[in-house]
């Protein structure tokens, strides 16, 4: 009996550490395959170099245009998704009747699972031509199109997580506010939102993290030009799109290959920072509302 127990315990321990091994392996591989690029180019020149010509002779590996591409698209997408996502969450939490919420919340959660390729495809065939016509652009595939599509894509994620945070605000908070003579809007803006503030910001950060790492959509609709953008109407080439577009043709072990892994490493570190911030904020949120478990 005792031996059997011990064996099971060891089996689970081994399985657990095997899955951890894979997860640690990702970090190791990114560093091992990414760092060799710095034999070809200095860190500063890599991060702040203004030209990305990996296939030219001599090749240039400056990823500033790619970073700026990601930044523009992300900022644009945040402007679309945060107001709409948080606004929808507030509606669901505050105004929707019990029945409406019971229907709308699951629908929004289901919509969060629409694959990114479907969004990219829709952006390419419907939104890009529309943008091109409205703004009289030479091509519709630009930072604006990518921002809109990515923004719409992130709304369900942000809405669903923000609504969770809002629903954790204890009823007593609202009742105390009503008892003091505040109306529903004042209660919402002065009591509920501040109380759920850090939970809502966690949802925003996780949404942004998803936007930064999104690949297929930007690959299809952002236009793909590796230039530092000066307006939303220019085509851009975010970091994720660069990896996806160029990995197929980069020879194994070449400087180009290592450069793409280094971009992957940067993406990994950026999303890691976002997730850690989100985790820290949400931990504080739970303590504040007495939800610590």
């Amino acid at each position, binding site marked *: 009996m005792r031996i059997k*127990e011990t064996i099971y*315990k060891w089996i689970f*321990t081994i*399985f*657990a550490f*095997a*899955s*951890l091994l894979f*997860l640690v*392996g*990702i970090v190791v*591989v*990114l560093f091992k395959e990414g760092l060799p690029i710095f034999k070809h180019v200095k860190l500063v020149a890599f991060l702040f170099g203004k030209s990305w010509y990996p296939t030219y002779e001599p090749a240039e590996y400056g990823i500033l245009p790619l970073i700026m591409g990601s930044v523009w698209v992300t900022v644009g997408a945040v402007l679309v998704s945060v107001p*709409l*996502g*948080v*606004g*929808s969450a*507030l*509606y*669901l939490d*505050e*105004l929707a009747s019990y029945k409406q919420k019971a229907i*709308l919340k*699951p629908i929004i*959660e*289901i919509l969060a*699972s*629409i*694959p990114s*390729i*479907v969004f990219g*495809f*829709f952006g390419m065939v419907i939104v890009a031509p529309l943008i091109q016509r409205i703004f009289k652009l030479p091509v519709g595939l630009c930072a604006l199109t990518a921002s809109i599509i990515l923004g*719409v894509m992130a*709304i*369900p994620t942000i*809405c669903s997580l923000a609504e969770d945070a809002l629903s954790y605000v204890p009823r007593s908070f609202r009742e105390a506010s009503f008892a003091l003579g505040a109306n*529903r*809007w*004042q209660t919402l*803006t002065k009591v509920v939102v501040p109380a759920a503030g850090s939970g809502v910001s966690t949802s925003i950060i*996780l949404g942004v*993290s998803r936007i930064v*790492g*999104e*690949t*297929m959509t930007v*690959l*299809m609709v952002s236009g793909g030009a590796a230039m530092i953008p000066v307006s939303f109407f220019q085509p851009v080439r975010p970091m*994720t799109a660069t*990896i996806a577009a160029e*990995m*197929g043709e980069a020879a194994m072990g070449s400087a180009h290959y290592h450069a793409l892994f280094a971009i992957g490493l940067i*993406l*990994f570190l950026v*999303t890691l920072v976002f*997730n*850690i911030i989100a*985790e820290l904020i949400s931990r504080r949120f739970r303590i504040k509302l007495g939800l610590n478990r």
Partner: protein
Amino acid sequence: MKKDNIQNLGFLVLFLCIVITLFFLGTIIFFVVVRGAKVISLSFLFEAPRRAMTEGGVAPAIIGTFYLTLGAIIFALPLGVACAIYLCEYSPKSFVVNIIRMSINNLAGVPSVVFGLFGLAVFVKFFNFGVSILSGSLTLGILVLPSIISASQEALLAVPRSIREASLSLGASSWQTIKKIVIPTALPGILTGVILSIGRIAGETAPIMFTAATFYIKKYPSSIFSEVMVLPYHIYALMTEGTHPDKQTAIAYGCALILLILVLFVSALAIVIRQRQRSYHHA
């Protein structure tokens, strides 16, 4: 009166937010359904593509998606559930375990293209599996491992302590308690996590671009070392390669509709299971 005017204005804005949100998402589904439905027929579902992708069906891509998803689940499910059982039931509550939990949470947020890079370096090149079903399944499996672990963990944590203690006090060993009490109680929660991951895997494109997918092969996959056509990558390829954009776009609409139905059905199923479970617990 002014106070109420502000309130009405504020509520109107919130109402507009949800209307716009549902309008945007509804439009996408509307276009894909209406235009995709025109293309879908039995031959579209069961035949191979012809004439350089401009005619025929997409059966190989549907089958490829099925194989990759199945492979990823076979790989990730036992590993993920075992890892969760270890973390919840066996591991000592320590600093190290907390670090492990945090890193699993963080890995769930790593961009999928980064998993693709890992799969390329490790499975395709290092283990020399090549661009194949095996490499793609393993890559997708690792991609969903964190979400399966955290969903299972959550389900296990939700099992009330009292029933564990009741089992232990009746003389059951810890493994018997886990097998007979904890896992059956947590099963719906674990299942929800797994089903949601199926939806996610089926729609992922970036991780399989360099590990499993190919634009066009005439044969159906014959072994786990074959390259495959996959629905999401097929949409991408139809839109970016080839010479007949009109015909290809129509086929891409069909693929998008199949993928959408598949993923929405799967995640609706998961959410229904979860909803039921919740009302069961509350009752």
